[in-house]
């Protein structure tokens, strides 16, 4: 399947549109982008809006795949390409929605600081929420060769899962909640004073720490707080920190496949953690009711073009 066929399957009816385009002499996404909209409208036998959208989707798909005939590019290359494109096309008016998200996120992403002393292999992966969909990351942040290692990843996970069962995880870290610290600024911090239950739990925790001579503050500030989202315990937090992921924002934006390989966490579990991290980041103020949040989310997804293709 070439990229033009992929475009036709994604945003049109598939073979018939593909045949129309090929009959017109267009074989690549680049040609679809370059063609006059009126001509495309005529070939597709569609109205202006559909033709424009089809052309826009061709550009977006081409951006994502790194060109018509190029393999998916690695994250850093891709980001530099996006940055370059953003600087070149800064004067363009009304860029496509998804491309705009890419560009804006690329512009907004701070450069990783080499002085931090913390290894951050995924800090450069500043992709938009759209790009951070699991399979998007699968495509845009890995090469085909790396994809060969899915089975090895699964085996690594199996080994890791086996090792987990033999580990004695510090139960107090799992059971006792901790307040959010400055290292997790993306989480809503409750202004309310600690509850009596919390104070009691804190006392128990500190007394146990004294008894067992364990440092009460063994969690380094450069780690995601354990239990800040469901599924990240102290061990998971440590593994993520070793892989250079020290905040929910970095967790949300890191390429899952590479992160799974680096940490030994299960790929699918990592996708879930990333989803929870994104949700925690984008959580609305508490006074907003969940019902309103859902409707807003639906509107937002519709506004971003998350609907059926024009010819589907």
């Amino acid at each position, binding site marked *: 399947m070439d990229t033009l066929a992929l475009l036709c399957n994604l*945003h049109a009816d598939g073979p018939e549109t*593909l045949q129309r385009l090929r009959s017109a002499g267009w074989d690549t996404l680049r040609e679809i982008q370059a063609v006059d909209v009126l001509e495309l409208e005529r070939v597709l036998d569609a109205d202006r809006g559909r033709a424009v959208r089809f052309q826009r989707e061709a550009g977006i798909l081409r951006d994502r795949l790194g060109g018509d005939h190029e393999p998916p590019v690695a994250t850093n290359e891709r980001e530099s390409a996006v940055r370059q494109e953003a600087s070149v096309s800064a004067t363009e008016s009304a860029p496509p929605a998804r491309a705009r998200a890419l560009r804006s996120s690329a512009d907004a992403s701070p450069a990783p600081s080499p002085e931090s002393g913390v290894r951050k292999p995924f800090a450069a992966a500043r992709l938009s929420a759209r790009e951070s969909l699991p399979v998007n990351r699968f495509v845009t942040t890995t090469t085909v060769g790396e994809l060969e290692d899915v089975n090895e990843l699964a085996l690594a996970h199996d080994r890791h899962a086996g090792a987990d069962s033999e580990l004695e995880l510090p139960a107090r870290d799992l059971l006792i909640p901790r307040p959010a610290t400055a290292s997790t600024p993306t989480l809503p911090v409750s202004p309310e004073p600690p509850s009596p239950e919390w104070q009691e739990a804190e006392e128990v925790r500190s007394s146990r720490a004294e008894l067992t001579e364990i440092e009460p503050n063994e969690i380094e500030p450069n780690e995601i707080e354990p239990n800040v989202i469901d599924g990240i315990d102290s061990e998971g937090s440590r593994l993520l920190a070793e892989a250079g992921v020290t905040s929910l924002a970095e967790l949300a934006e890191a390429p899952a496949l590479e992160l799974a390989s680096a940490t030994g966490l299960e790929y699918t579990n990592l996708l879930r953690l990333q989803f929870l991290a994104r949700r925690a980041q984008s959580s609305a103020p508490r006074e907003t009711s969940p019902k309103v949040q859902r409707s807003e989310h639906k509107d937002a997804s519709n506004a971003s073009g998350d609907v059926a293709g024009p010819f589907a």
Partner: protein
Amino acid sequence: MQTLALANQKGGCGKTTVAINLASALAARGERVLLVDLDPQAHASLGLGQADFAGSSIADVLSREVSITRVARKLPYGFQLVPGSLRVGEFEEEAARMLGPERVLENALMEVEGLFDWVILDCPTRADGLLAANAIRAASLVVLVVETGAFALQGAVRAQQLFIDLARECEREIDLCVLATLFDPTRSLAREILIGMHARFGDAMFDTVIHVSDVAREAIAYGMPVDALSPSALVSRQFAALAAEFCELDDQRQGEGAAAPFSWPHPEKV
């Protein structure tokens, strides 16, 4: 004669639907097609209204009791069917008393060489059994049918590895193409998975993607191919396009000396 094995160890990915409708679409192009139902559940036979399990079936062919030409039934849709049977499941036990049990189907299909242009093998879900080994050994092309749903990529990669292992055991080189099915363009996850499949399999994928379709489900329930029920339906046109791709592929392979669109390394080199 090209022998296609429609396979995937995952159930519910559309193998049988593709087998029935591809056979019909190829027949509509004037090709001579034989559909072999290797599934012990005999869903292809059921989906074509051939639920008469009392007659001869592929189980009798595999047990070397009957010639495959005597079992094949002419259907009103322009192709022939070797019906499946629940007794196919017993083949694994019977095979213990056979010499070369993994070659039974290959030998049986030699009888119809020249009688058909296409033989389509609807493989069972279990991909590590003797039935699958027979199909792989008999096939000139393995079509990996992949649903565009959750875990599709991982499942497809594992299936690929499984077939590599099978090919190694069969001591033969096989070619693989990937067909994406049950694609719902209104769901963003399906679109992302299709992009992921394209990144993973590239030119080994067919240009045609089979969409999820209520008409196709209805056609199976009515016991007929979808182009017999609704020729103008989108999914009917997609199967027609898929059949055209297969014919084009066949021409290409014959013209280029069986150059496959996507060749696995020879098992010895794996």
